[in-house]
């Protein structure tokens, strides 16, 4: 189904002390059901702002975002977010953190036993069933992020939004979690939008890569389709020509045409 999520001519500007700063300018994008999209760009280009707009955590200044047949207005569990810093509630156990979401979203629809089943199903999906009674402080960063993903999946979202989900993790843990996300997508065929600044991650995980120009007033510079079949294996792709070509295209966009001036 084409145009599952439609972002139509969205502008976003913030006003502070009477000064208006334009962050995003005329963003238009259509995403199909089951598609995995990465949004990549230099820091400060407004990619997190774009994700917050889709999540409904921030309001658009003009234009509209439509999911299915509904215009996005305000946050909701059908657009679950996996936050960069996991955002688990530290006073709740892993199980209780997921339960908070499940009780709220399925409180009236599922029986207690069904809800328990569903929580454990989602924890097992990210291989965290064994840590159900641990508190976030007792598990590693990668495990916290896994629980964050489980919590988001447990809301049974129409679209899963990931805001630099693995940015704070070390390279090895990151690879494990990328594999986990690919496995989950293979099983559930869910629609995902992921913010990232990691070129390999973008190419490995996504069907299309949305490349943003530098802010202020950032636009979508280019959209690159990644014509790689699934399932994808990290090792096989390392030397794959299509993979390398996509990688090169993203790198060229980021470092030739839209170099980040301040970083130089």
């Amino acid at each position, binding site marked *: 189904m084409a145009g599952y999520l439609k972002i139509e001519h969205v502008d976003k500007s913030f006003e502070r002390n009477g000064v208006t700063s334009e962050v995003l300018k005329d963003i238009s994008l259509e995403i199909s059901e089951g598609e995995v999209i990465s949004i990549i760009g230099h820091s400060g280009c407004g990619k997190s702002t774009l994700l917050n707009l889709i*999540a409904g955590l921030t309001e658009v200044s003009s234009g509209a975002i439509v999911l299915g047949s509904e215009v996005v207005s305000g*946050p909701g*569990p059908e657009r679950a977010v996996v936050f960069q810093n996991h*955002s688990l509630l530290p006073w709740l156990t892993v199980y209780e953190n997921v339960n*908070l979401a499940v009780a709220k979203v399925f409180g009236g629809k599922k029986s207690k036993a069904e809800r328990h089943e569903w929580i454990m199903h989602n924890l097992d999906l990210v291989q965290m069933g064994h840590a159900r009674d641990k*508190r976030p402080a007792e598990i590693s960063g990668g495990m916290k992020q896994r629980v964050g993903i489980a919590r988001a999946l447990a809301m049974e979202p129409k679209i899963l939004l990931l805001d630099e989900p693995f940015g704070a993790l070390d390279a090895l843990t990151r690879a494990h979690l990328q594999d986990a996300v690919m496995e989950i997508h293979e099983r559930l065929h869910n629609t995902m939008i992921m913010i990232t600044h990691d070129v390999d991650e973008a190419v490995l995980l996504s069907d299309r890569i949305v490349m943003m120009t530098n802010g202020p007033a950032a636009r979508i510079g280019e959209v690159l389709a990644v014509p790689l079949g699934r399932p994808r294996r990290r090792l096989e792709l390392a030397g794959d020509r299509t993979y390398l070509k996509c990688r090169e295209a993203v790198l060229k966009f980021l470092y030739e045409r839209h170099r980040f001036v301040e970083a130089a």
Partner: protein
Amino acid sequence: MSAEAQFETVVPAKKAKVFAFPAQPASRRIDMKKVATGVARSIVPPLIVILLILLIWQIACSTPGASLPPPSVVWEQAGELIWNPFFDYGNGDIGLAWRVFASLQRVAVGFGLAALVGVAVGAFIGQSVWAMRGLDPIFQILRTVPPLAWLPLSLAAFRDSHPSAIFVIFITAVWPVIINTAVGVRNIPNDYRNVAAILRLNPIEFFFKVMVPAAAPYIFTGLRIGIGLSWLAIVAAEMLTGGVGIGFFIWDAWNSSRLPDIIVALVYIGVIGFMLDRLVAGFGAFITRGTAAN
């Protein structure tokens, strides 16, 4: 090189053999010793200091013209208050435990109200920028008013000493609870708010499931300051309002020149105040055991 390698392989093996067998009894003996030294460390120094103070006090107040009674006289005249806190001879002649109990009841009501109102109002001004701007300056001024300054007004309003004393407790304890709760609520990480927004928690769910646990360390700091202030205020308030209570007992003892009784009552007040503080602190530590961020 080879010598070093040999060294490395031999030593751990030896170590393991030596430690394997006597491990359990040894550790048990060490534990007992540790407990004993721990107790000695925390009890012996204050004990010595107390004995020293009593000694100096005894010497200083033993001169014929001394205005205050020495410890020996206190023990002689007010001994029953110390070793029998639960007597009841009728006609209001009752042990100090009963008087303390009466004061604690007032504190419980006044402080309980202050905790409820303080958390609710604190949450409100922590959430709303406008409530903060409007109310904070007023609170900052009101909280510096000494507890007893409220007493005449509350006596006029309630026309009865009992609710007046409770009101004084309430008005004394409520400010630190409000202010600390407000700070705690303002410091709730934005991520938690985002999680709540995505789950569409309603304000009541947000209050109980996110706000209170997230702000609990701040709330308990406020409650701890509040209970301390309440205990300070109840004694002063009871001195003025009368009735049964440890504060009135001191006033009564002063009026009938029973100085030893006053000294015993002071010790009671100090010990109870310390216990109240520890009670709230312990309760807070228990409730917030999981709240440490990350």
